[in-house]
């Protein structure tokens, strides 16, 4: 069974400051890793994904994440945040098994940008 832990339920950050949203996962098999963003009253949108290769993954809106296998982490970072980044961010994991693309999500981190 897989699980995802997002250590911070809420993160307030001043505009133009850097931010890191933490994600740790647990799995008995190799996994794919994802970050999704959910703006108010909207569905989830994929920010970035790690499938294989380089452990540093770049996504949309200036976000990036680094896969660390030894620490089973996939933290999300942005060097300078904007008001428009205010949203809920979800880390998710799925098995590297054909046909088993079920996503297991963390509980989310609410990012609030302070002007």
């Amino acid at each position, binding site marked *: 069974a897989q699980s995802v832990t997002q250590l911070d339920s809420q993160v307030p950050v001043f505009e133009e400051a850097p931010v890191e949203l933490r994600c740790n996962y647990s799995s008995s098999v190799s996994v794919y890793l994802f970050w999704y963003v959910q703006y108010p009253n909207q*569905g989830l949108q994929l920010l970035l994904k790690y499938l294989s290769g380089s452990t540093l993954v770049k996504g949309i809106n200036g976000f990036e994440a680094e896969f660390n296998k030894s620490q089973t982490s996939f933290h999300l970072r942005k060097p300078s945040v904007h008001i428009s980044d205010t949203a809920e961010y979800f880390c998710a994991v799925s098995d590297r098994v054909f*046909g088993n*693309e079920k996503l297991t999500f963390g*509980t989310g981190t609410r990012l609030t940008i302070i002007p």
Partner: protein
Amino acid sequence: EAGVAQSPRYKIIEKRQSVAFWCNPISGHATLYWYQQILGQGPKLLIQFQNNGVVDDSQLPKDRFSAERLKGVDSTLKIQPAKLEDSAVYLCASSLARGYAGEQYFGPGTRLTVT
């Protein structure tokens, strides 16, 4: 390209009543998912379809929830009878195919309130 469509966007019912949600995935997407997102939690997969067949319904409360995707395109999720703990946002997502370790595209969700 049109996104995943869901209706209604909001629904309020009393406990023990029945309710149905509709989802139309992105054209050409063979795989369809229904997720339940309870306030303060990440989405949880209820059921996954591949075309019109069920791939995974292990977390669907089958005594009260049912879902179908008769023609392999749009899908309906039903709750009968509803309980207070069913209050949540129901998200529909679609992806190109099984084994596609990539993006799931989410609809805006249906917010259900059971009173």
